[in-house]
């Protein structure tokens, strides 16, 4: 069979991504459709597998009325997100700029800063946190609370210290983001910096006029990554609630409903982020 150049090109392209397309239907589209179907049904395990009976929107109603855990968990997740995402981004950008400087021991420091990528995913970190290993000793050792109490009113101090304590966690969560920022910094042409220096720009000006604007698309990428990462983190309250519903209470239909509501919620958040950045990136 003879094909024209163009048709052959198209066929080859599809040949390369064909395994992904098959995978997409097997592991994404069909499961997603099935789980959406489950949300409108009640599933009862029988001899021949699961039997579904149509119940309409009952599962959705349950999530917002009977289930006392779902809505609070969702708002908690949202609160954590609003606090942590900006902190992670600022810290990651700051670290990446530090690491990008040509200096002695560059490789060593980079190795150390990427250490969280190795350790901070999953169960090892959780165990460390349970044992109080991931928080810095200064908060307990120097009795910081009592010391500062003399200067700052307690109502203000407590959330402040809590915030400072969660900073170490933020640092631990920003490994991949540092990495992405660092890779982006490498792509900024040195000629731009040279020109700026020739014209007498200070480091501060250079950051705001060159580095930061060049990094904005990557800030977007990192925001997406951070949000997705924290939403899909198995330590997350909603994830645990869902797994409990499915594997302990064996309520498959309601579990799927939580999953879908969560998914819709994530998409709304990502949509807001996307709109916010589209306006900024237009400049």
């Amino acid at each position: 069979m003879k094909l024209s150049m163009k048709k052959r090109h198209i066929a080859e392209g599809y040949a390369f991504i064909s395994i992904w397309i098959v995978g997409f239907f097997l592991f994404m589209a069909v499961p997603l459709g099935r789980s959406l179907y489950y949300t409108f049904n009640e599933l009862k395990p029988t001899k021949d597998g699961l039997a579904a009976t149509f119940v309409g929107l009952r599962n959705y109603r349950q999530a917002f009325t009977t289930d006392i855990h779902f809505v609070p968990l969702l708002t908690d997740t949202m609160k954590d997100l609003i606090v942590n995402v900006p902190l992670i981004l600022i810290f990651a950008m700051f670290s990446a700029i530090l690491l990008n400087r040509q200096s002695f021991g560059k490789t060593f420091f980079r190795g150390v800063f990427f250490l969280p990528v190795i350790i901070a995913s999953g169960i090892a970190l959780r165990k460390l946190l349970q044992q109080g290993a991931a928080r810095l000793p200064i908060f307990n050792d120097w009795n910081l609370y009592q010391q500062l109490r003399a200067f700052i009113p307690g109502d203000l101090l407590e959330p402040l210290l809590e915030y400072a304590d969660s900073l170490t966690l933020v640092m631990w969560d920003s490994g991949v983001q540092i990495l992405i920022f660092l890779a982006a910094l490498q792509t900024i042409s040195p000629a731009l910096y040279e020109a700026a220096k020739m014209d007498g720009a200070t480091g501060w000006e250079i950051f705001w006029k060159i580095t930061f604007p060049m990094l904005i698309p990557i800030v977007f990428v990192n925001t997406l990554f951070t949000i997705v990462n924290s939403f899909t983190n198995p330590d997350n309250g909603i994830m645990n609630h869902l797994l409990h519903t499915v594997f302990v209470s064996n309520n498959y239909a309601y579990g799927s409903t939580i999953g879908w509501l969560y998914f819709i919620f994530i998409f709304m958040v990502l949509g807001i982020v996307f709109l916010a950045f589209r306006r900024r990136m237009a400049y």
Partner: protein
Amino acid sequence: MNMPAMRSVQTAVQKKLTVDRRFLYMRRTRSIAENTFYYLLLFTLSFVFVYPLLYMISQSLMRPSDIADATIRWIPKSFELNNYAEAFKSINYFNGLINSAWISLGSAVLQIISCSFIGYGFARYQFPGKGLWMALLIFTFLVPPTTIVVPLYIFYSDLGWINTLFPFIFPSAMGFGLKGALFVLIFIQFYRGLPKVMEEAARIDGAGAFRTYWTIMFPLAKPAMIVVFLFSVVWHWNDVFQPNMYLLIPDYFNLAQNLATFHGNANADSLQQLGQQVQQSDMLGSAPTLMNQIMAAVMLTILPILILYLFVQRAFVQGIERSGIAGE
């Protein structure tokens, strides 16, 4: 040129030179101060990252009595390797190690092969519907795994794949599995950054599309491969979400699962110390577990990937820079 004019030029040059020298001197002192600050900052931040590791090593070598002893902060009185021995037995180390290795290495290798293949197709070919498939690829990355947990579990159990490695292997071989979409995106970015000259030369010499890819482009993707390999191995290694769904028999548990269920082994010797231990833990607000053994268990669990990281670290960092993860 007459003499006086010459002289004036000379003095001007000299003046310029002294000014330059003074300027340089100023700059040097400033840069010393700057550098001190810079390294101080780097060391402080590095300390935060290394601290848990040091803490873990130190704690894992202590006896319970050392923890209660206020004079001991970092260096224990005697190195207590017994913690490791206990942890080794309790988390069923060898079994878990082998299971973890199969899951991590198997998935990582398959993901490299499949994601690179798919990424190349997306990066180099223009075909109708490409935009749609790209959008679906990003969509795949955004869907939380919990949303499709139930149908996938039913699907795999219908196939009889529960308690086998197939739920890890098959998705990985098709560019899915843990964070598969992200890996495809990394390869797309990498292949986009490569020049087309070599492929064109190969095509003109009569190599087919797959041969060109396999013999020329795939070997060039080493920097991206190292990045994907390390991410994939590490994320699979630490993952308990998927194994908890698909591996239900303790003999098939991977290391992370064993670690998650381990809360310290109270043997006769350490039971005596437990009284003090409880007080200690109440202060920390955690359950009265045998912290030293748990620390030893965590250490044992992450040791293989730490060693792996030591070896590939340099290549990994360079790979990040060269793979153009961040390139648009």
